[in-house]
């Protein structure tokens, strides 16, 4: 191993916020497509170090919410404050640069590339050596590549996917693809990690594995996590606070126990007789 490459550890970058302080805050955010309101007047916050779940029936606006946070959609109204700074229209790559990573409901991996390359692509923003150096693959660019490779290997170990390191991800089963996608997001060492249904379509064992990874990411790397999930058992087990959406409105917000006993939430999930 090259002596100039220092040992690296994975953790969210220190942003000067203490655990429990608000890292992301949405105030009165509204988003509509043409005449269809996807999100109406929603306010909530995410605190540093917590696991924040966003739940709600289908079509409640959960994914739209994540898309607003990472810059795919731009809300017509409302203010988004990330790490104390109010954001104006932000492009997704700028959101990524500011420390927000995400996964997708329908796995969005680079199917032609190997697991390793997929996770390496998460390091895009952390690589700075210019491109001539990389072509030559000598000196500083080589050190940099090795340094990033080390971090990626740590993630691969962490997620227990050593055996599929070189496999093109298109060939992997769904559960493993989801894990690789999580790995790519982790490679960005985000301050805020957005997970869109990380356990959708998984069997019980895979769900347990994924829950364990999410908890470990949260506790070991100190990453703040916002996740959308339909499995209520999982949500109530792993999240610190839950926000509930229905038809684009917020109908509940609080600890899992508070949310469970909220009449509006019960009505939304079970239906209410008129």
């Amino acid at each position: 191993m090259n002596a100039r490459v220092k040992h690296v550890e994975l953790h969210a970058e220190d942003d000067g916020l203490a655990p429990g302080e608000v890292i992301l805050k949405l105030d009165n955010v509204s988003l509509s497509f043409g005449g269809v309101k996807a999100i109406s007047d929603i306010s909530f916050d995410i605190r540093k170090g917590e696991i924040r779940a966003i739940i709600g029936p289908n079509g409640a606006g959960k994914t739209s919410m994540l898309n607003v946070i990472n810059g795919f959609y731009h809300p017509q109204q409302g203010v988004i404050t990330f790490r104390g700074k109010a954001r104006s229209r932000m492009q997704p790559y700028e959101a990524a640069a500011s420390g927000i990573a995400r996964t997708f409901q329908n796995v969005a991996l680079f199917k032609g590339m190997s697991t390793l390359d997929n996770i390496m692509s998460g390091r895009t923003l952390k690589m700075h050596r210019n491109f001539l150096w990389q072509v030559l693959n000598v000196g500083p660019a080589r050190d940099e590549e090795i340094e990033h490779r080390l971090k990626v290997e740590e993630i691969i170990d962490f997620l227990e996917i050593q055996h599929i390191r070189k496999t093109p991800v298109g060939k992997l089963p769904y559960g493993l693809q989801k894990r690789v996608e999580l790995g790519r997001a982790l490679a960005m060492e985000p301050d805020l990690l957005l997970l869109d249904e990380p356990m959708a379509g998984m069997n019980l064992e895979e769900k347990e594995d994924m829950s364990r990874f999410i908890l470990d990411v949260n506790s070991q790397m100190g990453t703040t996590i916002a996740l959308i999930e339909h499995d209520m058992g999982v949500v109530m087990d792993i999240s610190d606070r839950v926000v509930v959406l229905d038809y684009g409105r917020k109908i509940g917000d609080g600890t899992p126990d508070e949310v469970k006993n909220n009449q509006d939430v019960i009505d939304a999930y079970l239906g209410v007789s008129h």
Partner: protein
Amino acid sequence: MDFLYAIFIDPFVQMVELPDFLLQVLWEGFVAGVLYALIALGFVLIFKASGVFNFAQGIMVVFAGLTLVGLHEKGVPAYLALILTIGVMGLLALAVERFVMRPLVNQPDIILLMSTIGLTYFLIGFGEFIFGGEPKQMITTELGLPTGSTAFEIGDGGLLILQHIDIAAAVIAIIMVAALGVFFNKTRIGRALRAVADDHQAALSVGISLNQIWAIVWFAAGIVALTTGIMWGARSDVSFALEIIALKALPVLILGGFTSIPGAIVGGLIIGMGEKIGEIYWGPLVGGGIESWLAYMIALIFLLFRPQGLFGERIIERV
């Protein structure tokens, strides 16, 4: 019976009897194929990264060639003109990204295709306005490209004549493809390009800027166009007629697959050599002139049996 003999037996008899002539035909086809492959390469670069079929690739070849020759005519030394032309292709890439791609992002493919047709006509008009519509002589010797030819003796008394410029074209094409291979596989930008080709949303989410990537691929396609323009211009001349020949890239792409760089090359060679052989050995049966449509025939047959091309990604629709 005579007819069947003429189709299935006679051409092969001719090939065996005059092997040097066959080699000459194959070489001519190979060189044409290299040039088709270069044009197809320009298409593939842009298609991979943005899903846009760039109808303007052919005119970019002409435009690059015209700019180079035009600058030289205005008294700029050849190598400086080459560097300036590279700069012009860079500016063109930035302009296309800013004024065509960015406003039309997320529009249906057909709209993006139409916009590149618009770009084609803009470049035709702009090129004629600046440099005039007359065909121009490529500045081959000024750029230090070889001229002349070498003859090889083959068997007893057979001759194979290779034009030096053709050899140079083949070598430059190989270098170019190798360079693109390194660029795509070994660099961070290359990885980002492949990422964008696979999934736009995911690429955005890891912090890749689509705008930057598009500008880079259009620039790369511009450089490929310039190389093609020089090589093709050296064999005939630089004129707007080249744009029609550039459409030969279509059958090449159908054969090789729209997303594959090796496919563009193999497809180019198959089409180039196939149409030369077809023209020489089977052309006389139908009165000649099959070179202009044979490529499209081959493409049509391919579409029936292997629509994704030789190397393209399998088309799988999940229902």
